[in-house]
């Protein structure tokens, strides 16, 4: 089994580098269409973690949508988690969410802080 797997390891890495951005654009288009986002940032933060270069495992999304109007934070987050359910089940390991209404976004300083640094718990 390991003999079969070993030669493939390099290929997996090469593939990951070339397909980088596939998940990212998938996340982007899903959020854009389903939430009618007025502003959207999809930030791949995987490089901050102990994963191969070009990975798409750790993301931060900043979503400004009128659909969040009247919804408490937890419901906004659940909405996004639900839209990205497939991605979260198939490789996206961390998803940091900033969810604001257009009004909240206009009133905020529109500053997006970087996520906390990794402490090595990935995959363990």
């Amino acid at each position, binding site marked *: 089994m390991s003999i079969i797997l070993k030669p493939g390891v390099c290929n997996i890495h090469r593939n990951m580098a070339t397909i980088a951005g596939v998940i990212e654009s998938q996340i982007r288009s899903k959020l854009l269409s389903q939430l009618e986002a007025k502003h959207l940032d999809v930030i791949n933060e995987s490089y901050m973690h102990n994963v191969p270069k070009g990975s798409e495992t750790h993301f931060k999304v900043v979503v400004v949508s009128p659909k969040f109007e009247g919804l408490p934070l*937890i419901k906004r987050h659940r909405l996004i*988690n639900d839209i990205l*359910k497939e991605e979260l089940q198939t490789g996206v390991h961390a*998803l*940091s969410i900033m969810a604001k209404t257009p009004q909240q976004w206009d009133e905020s300083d529109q500053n997006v802080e970087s996520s906390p*640094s990794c*402490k090595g718990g990935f995959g363990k």
Partner: protein
Amino acid sequence: MNTLLRRTIFPIYSNTLKISCRSLTDAPIKEQIDKIVKNNKVVVFMKGVPDAPRCGFSNAVVQIMRMHAVPYDSHDVLSSEDLRQGIKDYSNWPTIPQVFINGEFVGGCDIMLQMHQSGELIEELKKVGIKSALLTAEESKQKEAEK
């Protein structure tokens, strides 16, 4: 004929066996979590332990709890794969850390951070009889100013 029969029947048998095993092991972890979150006012499911968090998001939650001097029960999901998956299923939330107050799922790192910044966390803690250290500090500052 005999082998054909065995081939078709065996997979069915082994599948039902798997399903029944799974539902048997599922129940206890759900019950266990239920007990944990209902028996403690504040519970944090995290990666690592409060003195040595093993994920930045878990660490951020620990720091927030420390600032408010909240007594809480913590559980390391890295110590048990059952718990790691079990807690995600229990709260229908895909990521760790997870915070529960009074048996209710409150959110993960982002929500805790925002509740901390907006002052909402102080209010939520008050509801369950926990006075945030930040509130105590604020009050003593006000008293000083009044003197």
